């Protein structure tokens, strides 16, 4: 199988950077999931879609807007009314859903190539993300598993909290390199490591 090319390839430099002499407070990485799929239910079909997600991924969605969960391999979160992003380390998620999310329930859109997944982890993850996005990253306001749609100027982002100090950010592939560079730049003051 042909390797997918990452848009970050030329700029992703593994190692410690910035003000790391006093320790590394941020770890940046590209998670490169095999599948990123958007599912959208017709009004009234959200329950069936959610149960379809459970069937395919085994992940249960908690109640409420922006609710989500992750098992480390697969992740799901709501990002808009009736709409969900589902991510899997493996490829083929779109076809797996094609049979489950019937036209009567909603639509499946494969975005595996179109979105780039960047993971930011570490004690200063909230601090660095707060430089970009006008949303509240504090744990009570943004619980583990939950997702948010937001924007940094021209760059749309869907963000899922996948740990107490870990966030997965999905950005449009064409913006990914610019955003990555900005993220590295913003992490310099606290010291960061690229994995």
């Amino acid at each position, binding site marked *: *199988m*042909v390797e*997918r*090319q*990452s*848009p970050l*390839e*030329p700029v992703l430099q593994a190692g410690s950077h*910035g*003000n790391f002499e006093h320790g590394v407070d941020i770890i940046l990485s590209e998670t490169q999931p095999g599948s990123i799929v*958007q599912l*959208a239910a*017709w009004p009234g079909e959200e329950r069936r879609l959610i149960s379809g997600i459970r069937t395919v991924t085994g992940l249960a969605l908690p109640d409420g807007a922006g609710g989500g969960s992750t098992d480390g391999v697969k992740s799901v979160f709501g990002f808009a009314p009736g709409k969900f992003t589902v991510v899997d380390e493996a490829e083929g998620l779109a076809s797996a859903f094609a049979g489950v999310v019937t*036209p009567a329930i*909603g*639509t499946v*859109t*494969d*975005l*595996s*190539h*179109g*979105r780039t997944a960047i993971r930011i982890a570490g004690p200063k993850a909230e601090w660095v993300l*707060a*430089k*970009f*996005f*006008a*949303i*509240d990253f*504090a744990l009570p*306001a943004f619980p583990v598993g939950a997702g948010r749609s937001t924007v940094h*100027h*021209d*760059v749309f982002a869907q963000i899922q909290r996948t740990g107490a100090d870990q966030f997965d950010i999905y950005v*449009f*592939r*064409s*913006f990914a*390199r*610019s*955003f990555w560079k*900005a993220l590295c*730049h*913003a*992490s*310099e*003051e*606290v010291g960061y490591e690229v994995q």
Partner: protein
Amino acid sequence: MSPRRTDAGGRIDRLRTIRFTFDGASYTGHAGDTLASALLANGVTLFGRSFKYHRPRGVLTSGVEEPNALVTVLRGEVREPNIAATMIEIHDGLTAVSQNRFPSLAWDVSAINQLGGKLLSAGFYYKTFMGPVFGPLKGTRFWMFCEHFIRRAAGLGRAGTAPDTARYERMNAFCDVLVVGSGPAGLMAAKAAADQGARVILAELEPHFGGSANWSGEVIDDMPGADWAARAAGQLEGHDNVRLLPRTTVWGYYDGNTLAALERVTDHKENPGKGEPRHRYWAIRAKTVVLATGSFERPLVFPGNDRPGVMLAYAGERYANEYGVLPGDRIALFTNNDSAYRAALALKKAGAAIVAIIDVRPELSSEMRKLAGEAEAEILSGHAVVATEGGKALSGLKVQRFDMVSGALTGDARSIHADCLLMSGGWSPTIHLASQAGARAEWNAARQAFLPPRPTQRWPTQQWIGAGAFTGSFSTAEAIAEGRAAGLSAAGAAGALSALPSVEAAPGDPDPAPVFEIRAKGKSFVDFQHDVTAEDVRLAHREGFVSVEHLKRYTTLGMATDQGKISNIPGLAIMAEALGKPIPEVGTTRFRPPFSAVSIGSLAAERFGDIKPERLTPMHDWHIANGATMYSAGLWYRPMIYGHAGETIEQAYVREAKATRESAGIVDVSTLGKIAVQGPDAAEFLDRVYTNMFSTLAVGKARYGLMLREDGLAFDDGTTWRLGEQDFLMTTTTANAGKVMQHLEYFLDVIWPELKVHVTSVTDEWAGAAIGGPKARPILAACVTGTAVDNAALPFMGIVRGKISGVPVMICRLSFSGEMAFEVYCGAGYGTHVWEALIEAGKPFGLVAYGLEALGTMRIEKGHVTGAEIDGRTTARDLHLDWMLSKKKPFIGSAMMDREGLIAPDRLELVGLIALDNRPLNGGAHVVEVLDEANPHDSIGHITACCYSPALGKHIALALVKGGKARHGSRAFVSDPLRNRFGPIEIVSNHFYDPDGSRMHG
């Protein structure tokens, strides 16, 4: 004598000596000094020159409201002008220079302006400089001649041109309670709220928390106020629900309790840390705001009140108590209220002689007499200062008996020898943020001040609570009580019952005498920086500029860098007196952001040096590696040409276009907007959105579509592919991708919510390569597996799926170049892989990669439209796209597209032009019927795009020309006076090349 450092006392670190320079001279100070305190300690009294008269000025205050002591801070080549010396913390290597003076601060030639004082009265420039009505200086010339010199004389500091290498950052913060100001009120509020578990941010514009507690000499909770404040700040630091922001000015109060603050992170450091921003711009969304912003002391207005050595009383007290600096050895005080007496005592204790306390009030309380006695000061009650003496430093003053009711001065003037005069004209609460938030201040006659409305006025989108001097409660005991109450209330808690910290403070009546000005001979300054005098205010009155806004605008009162923090009220008071009206009837200004000036770098924040992200296609690195010159198209970068060594742009695109028409070319089209339109009603939706039918489109086929706006004008075009019964892939122009997406979403959400359609941007999902030319099909045949690409399998506008080099691809046969052409789409992550495979397969066929210039050339030859023609002012008919307007169905814009103005015969219509003189044409050139190079007139249209056409061997253009089609075959002229390009042209059809499409149909 002059100012000097005291032997002991103050909160400076006398063990740490810091070296800095001012105007090239080296000085030392101590850690904890401001530039102002350190210079005073070195005996410097002359800090700057005023704006208009270039009068010598000292330091008037010790805080953010400083109007006089403005300097420029240098960091290498980088200049930071107009910074108050009172706000600069000294550090080793600090380099500051004075400004608005030539050749030096002490000898400034522009000080000659003072001689023209009466002539340069408020508004003088409106009355003159109009110049002669006839002759060479008529019109605006004479004014512009004079203005040239006025501009050079005006201005304060000089801005730098060297790019600032510092970084600026923005931080978004959320909290339950934002406390602004950390005096006793703010500290109590923050602590009370934090103890309730609220998320608290405490912002203090000074380096240290504590506000007046740091210099008032008061005892709080049985310890010196400064210690109490340090302890309270230390306790807050221990809470993980509290963020402390020192050196942070909250400058804006916006809707929805969004506040803007500027943190000066590294200005006080010689060497900032790696990655540390110089300024951090905080955008704080607070549920509740506690405003504990304190108050500003006001000057008194009297002749000579601007002489270096005249200072606000609190500032003198603060220099002594906080910085261990005596502003003079022989100090006189001039006051209309009790607060100056505490200052007198503090300075006495610090080692100065208090030569006199001049009080406008005839009667003084026994407490004040006692304080004056302790300060060993002579009391001159019922007196006023009528003049100051000295050159660039105060040497003495004159006082006279004063009747504060009539304002009359009587008796002989008495001279008093003093090197420092401290004045106090009462206090004005710092209500700026509340005013920004919409609160209307209320005049309090007792306090002689505008107070924030009380009880807390609710402005719908702003929730704030006031505490301390901000509310007009000037005593520390009140501040502590109000601060805690505010903190509790902001945290949503009921009143606490524990005892409040005790306060030992000097007594004093918070209410001043209503005296603002001593009218005597000489210039009495109201706005120090802008040199607005009391006479200027009265002149404004005489000329009818009596409303507060007219006063400001006519005299420039309050428009200087200090924004009238200390001058507004005295100015209003003088106008009120002239009008014979009470002060509140003259009005008060609504304060607007920012509270104090904010670096532009901080506001640009992370966008400084990085204004917009770069949008890159999957094949971007290949283009760069293969010599492409990139063109910035919106946020995207696209290859313009792949130039060979020694080629001009024109040679390169001509070569690329020619090769494409002769064999084959390939172009990156990944930037085209792509929208997945899915759902059972997708076809119906597209029928409504496009002017032409899409429900009739077969699965596996594509169709060119045109969209109009609601007003019936052309909006966007592109092909849409039917991938499944309920599954369409819409393409849009690169520039309009976002707009089209929003347009579709709007109709689905707002107008037709009953339609079951989802739209998703998939622009980034697909890499796209368009390959065209006579050899395009053989090239595909050579590398595509899993499908045939011949005419039967892949007819015009057909779509097939297959693989290239192991990667799944979707191929649609459509053409923009006019050649037999195909668009090959694959997952973006495989984009470069497929592109390279195509390049490889094309090698034997002479395939070239081409850029936007060749793309543009071929589309001009074909007469296709783009954004240059669909410019928001053209209709489908104008562009000869009326064949696409379905008559079988309504669509967006169909009802409006036939209005009289949109079908008028003289509209600009798309045509082709051929240069008959065989010279290049220019984009943006106009078309005329009658050539008049000297006085071009009567344009009938303009060129939208032009090129040298290798296919035709001519310079051609597309143009929008009045009554276009009817002019086909006629002659006209291109008229481009901007570039002096005139010449004959022939107007032809826009379809220059292969008009019947035989090449693309193959």
